[in-house]
């Protein structure tokens, strides 16, 4: 127990409001935290294990005798270390997280709970299939939902993220061409495309050619038609595209592509805008990855893990990678090795994919259902258009008309203010918000891409818009310092990335200690 001043209530005398810097550098609840290498002990451990004969005897030469260099922490120290670190992060659970193209939506905790059922979390990928019928049934159900929502006949579940899905799609496309003995060389990608698109195409051995964009932010049909040809293997088009716009001529794009004997790979990262309302199959898509960690809300986890199943058209389905689930009379089974004569292009990874994400995504899908998912898309689009409408007075949107799930602005409205998109973003941090996606897509100067998602309440969106409008006014009023120096209220001030890149320090080394001490 304790008591506050023996219950004699205290009344603060009015005092100066300016914060004196503290004597130890303390900042109230915000705790500075050293590295485990500076905190831990070399022979300390937070895990109690029985003794065991280390068995060096039978390993001889192979025995690791030299020190490894790993610090250990007791559980109280470890817990405190990571809890302190966690509080230096922004997160969806703290405030709007408007990273365009990332779909930072609420992650339901039921999904986490389900993923931890021992029947899902404690099963081995290679234990007898007779003992994992529920897991195979879940994969089968997930496939059914994805196929029904996209209208596509087949899906490859194993890709581990969107980029991995792109790889899967292009590998299938390449296999399809090779099967016809028709080796093609080029893949067409709009300039606005996400970096993973050209990177993937190159990885698969294709030359990447850019497709021009029209003034209204869509694929330039004429340019596409001109560049399509007998050596074009595929086009990679994102729809809704990275400017947050629906590709109006998508059906024509598909027609032209198919007419040229090429395949239409659709980047489905932005599926959230149309899920339940538009089926990619109805747009002529041959392959599309679905980021389960975006549209279907598996947690982003500080950068992963994700999952990127790829839906495939009848033309590409025969080339899908192993493994896949089949249903026989003995129940479900896994095909882990392509039968002779199968066109399967091979294997994406050692096992069956991101089961932990499948559980979360299916839980999410079943929770929303067909009607809920449609509402998801509509609310996501509504929130984005609302933001676009509220901010357009002060900021400049490069493209007119309604947007899909994200609102794109350029930096022309900042001209002459000496405030850059980066400065503006950093000032947002002080106001309590995570910045939007900056400088992407590349087709727009100083791009600011704002994606609120459907899980933001109107009140939070208004708070966000009010803050941006206030900042915009300040920028135009020449209140430059608050931008150049920003952030002032974050755990750290702006970081020196040039130094980081010039003298890369990528791991802790004993010297690092002195550097710290020196500070």
């Amino acid at each position, binding site marked *: 127990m304790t008591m506050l001043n023996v219950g004699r209530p205290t009344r603060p005398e009015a005092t100066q409001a300016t914060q004196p810097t503290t004597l130890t550098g303390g900042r109230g609840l915000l705790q500075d935290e050293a590295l485990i290498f500076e905190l831990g002990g070399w022979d300390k451990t937070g895990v109690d294990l029985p003794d065991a004969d280390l068995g060096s005897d039978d390993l001889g030469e192979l025995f*690791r005798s030299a020190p490894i260099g790993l610090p250990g922490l007791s559980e109280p120290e470890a817990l405190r270390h990571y809890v302190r670190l966690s509080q230096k992060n922004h997160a969806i659970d703290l405030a709007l997280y408007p990273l365009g193209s990332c779909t930072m939506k609420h992650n339901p905790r039921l999904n986490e*709970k389900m993923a931890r059922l021992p029947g899902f979390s404690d099963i081995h990928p290679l234990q007898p299939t007779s003992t*994992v019928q529920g897991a195979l049934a879940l994969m089968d159900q997930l496939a059914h939902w994805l196929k029904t929502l996209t209208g596509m006949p087949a899906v490859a579940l194993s890709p581990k993220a969107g980029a991995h899905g792109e790889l899967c799609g292009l590998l299938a496309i390449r296999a399809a061409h090779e099967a016809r003995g028709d080796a093609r060389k080029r893949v067409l990608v709009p300039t606005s495309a996400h970096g993973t698109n050209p990177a993937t195409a190159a990885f698969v051995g294709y030359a990447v050619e850019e497709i021009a964009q029209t003034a209204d932010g869509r694929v330039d049909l004429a340019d596409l038609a001109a560049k399509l040809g007998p050596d074009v293997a595929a086009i990679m088009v994102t729809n809704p595209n990275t400017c947050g716009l629906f590709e109006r001529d998508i059906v024509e794009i598909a027609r032209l592509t198919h007419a040229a004997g090429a395949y239409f790979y659709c980047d489905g990262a932005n599926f959230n805008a149309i899920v339940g309302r538009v089926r990619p199959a109805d747009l002529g898509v041959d392959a599309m990855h679905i980021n389960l960690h975006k549209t279907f809300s598996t947690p982003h986890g500080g950068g992963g893990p994700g999952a990127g199943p790829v839906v495939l058209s009848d033309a590409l389905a025969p080339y899908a990678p192993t493994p896949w689930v089949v249903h026989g009379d003995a129940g479900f089974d896994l095909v882990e090795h392509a039968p002779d004569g199968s066109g399967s292009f091979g294997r994406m990874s050692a096992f069956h994919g991101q089961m932990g994400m499948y559980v979360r995504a299916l839980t999410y899908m079943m929770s929303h259902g067909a009607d809920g998912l449609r509402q998801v898309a509509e609310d996501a689009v509504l929130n984005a258009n609302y933001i676009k*409408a509220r901010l357009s007075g002060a900021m400049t949107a490069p493209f007119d008309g309604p947007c899909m799930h994200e609102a794109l602005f350029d930096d022309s409205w900042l001209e002459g203010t000496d405030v850059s998109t980066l400065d503006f973003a950093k000032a947002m941090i002080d106001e309590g918000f995570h910045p939007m996606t900056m400088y992407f897509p590349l087709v727009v100067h100083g791009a600011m891409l704002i994606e609120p998602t459907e899980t933001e309440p109107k009140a939070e969106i208004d708070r966000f818009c009010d803050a941006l409008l206030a900042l915009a006014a300040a920028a135009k009023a020449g209140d430059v310092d608050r931008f150049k120096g920003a952030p002032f209220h974050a755990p*750290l001030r702006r970081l020196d990335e040039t130094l*980081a890149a010039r003298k890369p320090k990528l791991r*802790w080394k004993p010297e690092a200690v002195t550097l710290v001490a020196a500070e």
Partner: protein
Amino acid sequence: MRYLPLTAEDRATMLGVIAAPSIDALYADVPASARRSGTVDLPNFQGEIEVERAMAALAGRNRPAGAAPFFCGAGAYRHHVPASVDHIIQRSEFLTSYTPYQPEIAQGTLQYLFEFQSQVAALTGMEVANASLYDGSTGAAEAVMMAHRITRRAKAVLSGGLHPHYAETIRTLAHVAGVDVLSQPAAIDGEAAVIEAIDAATACVVVQTPNVFGTATDVTRIAEAAHAAGALLIVVTAEAISYGLLKSPGEMGADIAVAEGQSIGNGLNFGGPYVGLFATREKFVRQAPGRLCGETVDAERRRGFVLTLSTREQHIRRDKATSNICTNSGLCALAFTIHMSLLGEAGLRRLAGVNHAQARKVAAALSAIPGVEILTPRFFNEVAVRLSKPAAGVVETLAEEGVIAGVPYSRLAPSAGLDDVLLIAATELTTDADIAALATALSGVLA
């Protein structure tokens, strides 16, 4: 609908501000042919109670490893993860944040990534490590591509002890990259055989230790041979706990060390998500795939961390990038880092020791059984045994008797002609009673 905050009233107000007559108006760009008025043919929304029941029913149709004596390994291992690990990774600030693009409000993630890289570098005995890849197998494929870039050579030699699924993953990618893959025939103890295949066109040799048959190998000689030919040595490890007992790839001359990190901090999860460990030499770092976290200072000279050397990555370099990877295994890397911080060097060595000791008990118990021949000469926590009957059938029979005996090699490579080989792994969770149960059941079915 519990996850959707907007009320009907909100929607109306917002449409008003947008000056749009209806939601449909916002979808005006969708071709008429693709507009759907109704909902797709799937069930409608359900409450937590109903969804939880449905999911629990599915989970109930699987047999958790913890429910019976269990000996599967072959690239995924059942270890004990301290309760505090799962507690921490569920913190909102870790679980619901994304790639730390704004370092001022992502130091939590950046600092643990820096700690992760430092731990991985130490474990593998290498100079630098990245911030994780999807898993061990994709890491192995990335390693081959990297060797291809560095050496500008187009041939990769894979050992006969490399996990067949890893080999297949490499082949799939190498094929389109124009890299010839020479896989050597399956061999219990033949990593060194790759030496014969090294030539002037060889970009890299890929060996695994402990290999898929559990055999641990000192690859120093292989490193020398590779380097002599200007090729790189890629060392794969599928059981990260082995680093606590066995000499590290770096100590044996590896140029790239790749590992499956699942064993530390992460559960079995039926194969994913896992975490790929990727480490190499400082001089090769600009050719490495994936994110790198580096140390720097802020405007007030306080230490901080940022993502760095991103000019290698797809979002900057696009078709010239070293890899197309974007989302990686962040949260699994956090689980790894926390578990590793709890273990520390002392705990890891102890844990590895217990694993090894239990595996030795398994070998001892099984070697006494007629019809069982221990094939693995030097192992960490997994042994390959030859049975007097096809392994697949034996595993099925034992499963019905409540013992999950291991992984038949034929499941990994049906055409390798090793149908009688069974891979049996033990960990700190394997009890002496489990081992006794396996021995009894096995003698029964082989008798």
